[in-house]
């Protein structure tokens, strides 16, 4: 084959590769989950896909997914929220104190999301009105402040024992006797239903409302958003407030799951949330990412941890693996951006 023909072939191969990119961008992550499930099923045929293990994974990711969803919205605006792990702890402590004070369960239930809401609003106001140079700094500060307050109000000791109505949210089971016969052990965790409902609501919010569109626009070009008459500061306050609110919901789920509020609750979970968002395909530079991607990112983290635990892989190796996946995911994002701007 002569030189010209070879060049032509190279070009064809390249266009095929470039053509496949949008496909992988959209479905690659789901493919990755399927591969992980298949591999883990082969390695642990009796355990991994058992009803008990699968529901376990969902119960574990349900509270983490709330943090990831909130942090995702923040990252879409090209911001960051490092304080969600502390918000979850503070809202959990607030809930526990309200519970110990003998408040009725429906008040106790509202305490955690309300505290999360206020913490998030505090972040948003600091970032916009106080003109902090970067959300990293404001939320790094509140990472310490919120956990500190949580320990101050609780005296730094765990508080245990909540009302049954609280426990149902994180630990409840929806029996499936209808499908599996009387007294069957199969069930769906309440927290899974809650997670799906909240993800759906936020999917609608981000994709089918004007504010959702503006959140993406701010991440793409805040100057363009301003020129279009969008009040960027107000939208940012909404985003950080919702992020805190979701962390508060996470605190509520965690309360039900553990039946306890403890000083180390949610420690470093902000980093897990950021990792899930990045693995899920959101760009750290803002403006890019999907709710489904966040769900997938959360599931990948959950499945990976669960599978490695089942196979008795040491926690240290788990850390190495998760770190590697984050770097790989971001590297793919870098390649994608290069290709997108090459035209």
């Amino acid at each position: 084959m002569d030189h010209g023909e070879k060049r032509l072939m190279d070009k064809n191969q390249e266009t095929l590769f470039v053509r496949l990119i949008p496909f992988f961008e959209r479905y690659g992550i789901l493919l990755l989950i399927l591969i992980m499930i298949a591999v883990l099923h082969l390695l642990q045929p009796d355990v991994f896909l058992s009803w008990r293990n699968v529901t376990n994974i969902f119960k574990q990711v349900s509270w983490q997914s709330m943090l990831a969803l909130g942090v995702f919205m923040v990252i879409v605006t090209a911001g960051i929220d490092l304080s969600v792990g502390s918000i979850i702890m503070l809202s959990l402590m607030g809930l526990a104190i309200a519970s110990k004070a003998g408040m009725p369960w429906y008040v106790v239930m509202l305490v955690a999301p309300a505290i999360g809401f206020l913490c998030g609003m505090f972040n948003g106001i600091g970032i916009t009105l106080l003109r902090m140079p970067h959300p990293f700094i404001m939320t790094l500060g509140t990472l310490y402040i919120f956990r500190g307050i949580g320990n101050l109000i609780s005296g730094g000791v765990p508080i245990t024992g909540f009302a049954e109505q609280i426990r149902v949210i994180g630990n409840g089971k929806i029996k499936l006797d209808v499908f599996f016969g009387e007294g069957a052990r199969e069930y769906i965790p309440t927290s899974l239903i809650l997670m799906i409902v909240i993800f759906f609501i936020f999917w609608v919010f981000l994709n089918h409302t004007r504010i959702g569109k503006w959140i993406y626009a701010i991440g793409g070009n805040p100057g363009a958003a301003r020129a279009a008459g969008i009040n960027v500061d107000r939208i940012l306050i909404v985003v950080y407030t919702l992020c805190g609110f979701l962390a508060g919901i996470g605190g509520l789920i965690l309360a039900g799951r553990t039946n306890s509020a403890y000083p180390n609750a949610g420690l470093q979970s902000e980093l897990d949330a950021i990792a899930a968002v990045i693995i899920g395909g959101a760009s750290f530079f803002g403006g890019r990412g999907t709710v489904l991607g966040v769900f997938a990112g959360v599931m990948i983290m959950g499945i990976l941890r669960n599978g490695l635990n089942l196979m008795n892989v040491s926690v240290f190796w788990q850390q190495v693996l998760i770190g590697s996946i984050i770097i790989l995911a971001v590297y793919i994002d870098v390649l994608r951006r290069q290709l997108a701007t090459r035209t």
Partner: protein
Amino acid sequence: MSDNLVLEAKSVSKFFGTITALQNVDLHLNKGEVLGVVGDNGAGKSTLMKVLSGLYKPSEGSLFFDKEKVTLNSPRDSQNLGLEMVYQDLALAGNLPIGDNIFLGREPTRKVGPFNFLDHKKRKQLTEEHLAKLKINVKSADQKVEELSGGQRQAVAIARATAFNAKIVLMDEPTAALAVKEVGKVLDLILNLKKLGVSVIVISHRMDDIFTVCDRVMALFQGTNFAESELKNTSRDEVIGWIMGKKD
């Protein structure tokens, strides 16, 4: 003066502290007319545009839209009067599709119960109609702006400015950042706007632009009106002389 007057500035001055950016500048614009504004850097072109769009308040002088005296407190006010500005840095969000950019901040919605949801179908339809009206060719209204060439982006920015029946469009160096082969398309677009009855003010350094699209050209020099002429009564050399402050 003609009955078709859509915009007029009378002896507008703008001071920034001790600096005089504009001194008694007059400007008028007729319906469907393309006016070129030329001048050296610092001659006051951009300041004048910002006064016309309401971004700056004039220190002295007054503005008339459709022969009525107005006070502009923000670009929102001039938009409501039918004046749109195409920014030099384009002000587009690259991560969003063309249609989203054109309607950013003014998205069509539909009511479902108590909630307002985006009307994706209507936006797409309006976008396609509007692009067709301006004869802008893109693969699809759903294409992301970051995938477009510089000229296409400029076209989207102009489409955005004219999506809500703008009567006057201000353009600051619309061809400055474009490849040579794309300049022609943007100039065609300006002529198209003119045909649709839109009045355009173009700031440009490029004589080719001025002499392709404009009906009239005015030169600013050190913040003052320096010269003005119907295009047919002047020449490139003369206009270049005006920019440098030379008049025969």
